[in-house]
């Protein structure tokens, strides 16, 4: 079957969202990890910042990334008419 313009737009938007969220994931994991020694001088709730990020902060970011992706994509499915029937 031939994909319509609308379908192509849906996929482009999906790719863009995926890319942005992966970039956030990358920063929260690898950029934070690379600079961990430089980021330990200030504290948050008593934790050195880099310890807090690796033990909690980045994890919370991951949970939010996945929540947002599910929310945004399920909404976009309906907007582009590619959602599933009954759920």
């Amino acid at each position: 079957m031939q994909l319509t313009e609308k379908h192509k737009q849906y996929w482009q938007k999906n790719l863009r969202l995926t890319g942005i969220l992966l970039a956030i994931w990358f920063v929260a994991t690898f950029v934070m990890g690379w600079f961990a020694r430089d980021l330990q001088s200030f504290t948050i709730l008593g934790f050195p910042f880099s310890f807090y990020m690796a033990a909690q902060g980045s994890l919370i970011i991951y949970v939010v990334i996945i929540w947002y992706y599910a929310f945004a994509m399920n909404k976009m499915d309906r907007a582009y008419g590619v959602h599933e029937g009954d759920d």
Partner: protein
Amino acid sequence: MATQTQAQFYSSLKKYYSFYTGGFIAFVIIVAILEQMGVPNKILGYIFLAATVGLYAGIGVMSRTADVSEYYVAGRRVPALFNGMATGADWMSAASFIGMAGTLYLTGFDGLAFVLGWTGGYCLVALLLAPYLRKFGQFTIPDFLGARYGGNIARSIGVFAAILCSFTYVIAQIYGVGLITSRFTGLEFGIGVFVGLGGILVCSFLGGMKAVTWTQVAQYIILIVAYMIPVVWLSVKHTGIPVPQVAYGYVLEKVTAREKVLNDASTPDGAREAAVRAIFKQRQEAAEGKLKALETGGAAYLAEEKGKLEKAASDLKASSAPDAKAIAAAEKDVAGFPADAAAAKKAWTGAANAAKAKTGPIAAHAEPFSGKDEKTRDNKRKNFLALVLCLMVGTAALPHILMRYYTTPSVGEARKSVFWSLFFIFLLYFTAPALAVLAKFDVYTLLVGSNFSELPSWVGAWASVDKSLMSVTDINMDGIVQLAEITIGGDLIVLATPEIAGLPYVITGLVAAGGLAAALSTADGLLLTIANALSHDVYYKMIDPHAPTTRRLAISKGLLLVVAVVAAYVTSLKPGDILFLVGAAFSLAASAFFPALALGIFWKRANKWGAILGMTAGLGTCMYYMYMTYPFFGVNAPQWWDINPISAGIFGMPVGIIGVIVGSLLTAAPAKEVQEMVDHVRYPNLEGSVSTQTV
């Protein structure tokens, strides 16, 4: 149940599991009352293990099925929330439940690689794989490779890789089951393994994925309750706040301050630590001296040393007032003397390393990549990041996890389900670092500096169970405990927390039940993956595509039994190091599956030859590096860029990706039908497109 709508099914599930949770709490209270009435601890341990395994068996029997779709994918009607819990239990193994807090205790910041890697990987699952695999909607991961890349070659490599990484991983789980069963019932390890195996099989044998799903939900509830109670209690004890995850920042500050005192020889506590370290330094030098003399003197030196010991013993006996204790000690020295040069070298090298480990100052818990110079620190950082990446990509490639997203009713539910999965995993993973810090605070402030005559009771209790888990010796004979005199094994932290927090034995039993739930649930998911790869992908898809349903299921169940027995047998031989086995499984999965799966969805041009080249090259590179550098195999070749063998996937993944790209571009583009299939999986609902789902 077939006539119910999904909404009714969901609400009755919520009702069942609420009742179940309430019932479980009531059960724990009853056991607590029994304990107060004076029932011995061993009986309580049996009650806990029997009741929980009995419960799983009950769910397993109730979920028995003769329907192919129910057996392989739980009928594709598991709501997002419950699939999240099941994935959580499937995911969190004995290594997460028992080992992780201990690893964090021992390694501080650097251990957080496991926390990051085992949670962040779900971002890749959610964004790159789960919704698309759900839309594809068949039974196994090799199914996707077979359909996307055509023919049986890609599928076969997928089957081989799925079995390789799942089998490596399942051995670590069964090991955990055996350890817990033997520790809490007093059975021998080998028997514990097979008793635990019975527990695994009752969950999965009759009902396949359907039974595994519903027992995993039950197991998640037990394991999270069991993990939280002691940590919350410990947090109240030290901070007065019942939310350990928030409160432990201030405890960490105190731990850091205490580390500085203990490392500073000008304080009284620090001076005592320094004295103990100096003794260890002497021991290290003594052992190294003996090693050197052995190298030059050989067997003659060995005989001479043994002669000295024998003479000392006979002198003692011949003395005018023989001291029985001293004679016994001297004779023990003679009996324990290494028999030949090889044994002597091994014993003394071990002694030198053990003493050396105690000579350095305490590593700061919160400091990332601590090391004596810039090079060591850079090396640690590099390995930390490499391990994080391997664990993350491995998460997004382990078949037993990806398979779980086939079981949701729709693509939308699959997306939500990944969120719930990570949420439930997160609950445990952001508690583990808190537990490590709280336990460390307890040891650094209450145990260190106390008198040997009045050690807390848990120290003695665990030291008598297993010296490698807990031992305290008064090295400098001052009657006071110094940190360097304590040896703690990682697994102790979770197992002993209830006692450290001063909780009754019932909570210890609960923690054991939680650890067992974690190991059983993961082992179930893995065994099912292996058995399904053999029965569905090899037998049904390649050997006999016309096999009737009853025969397919009979073969599936038979293979499950065979695989389980083989895995238990291999485990009872106690191969290798558990943490390495787990890490190896992730590196193998990351190298073999991830490139072909992700590119198969996001790059239409990827074709059969690309997938074959990428998977074999990626897996091959990873296995080659492990074989060459992991000491177990005895080759010990130099490492590439100082990367540890556990992170072998760091080389396998890029080779795999390049392999897929090069192989695809060198050969013709995939057929039109395949490209249409890719479009089909990209859109949750595409009118008029091909259908791939097997009902």
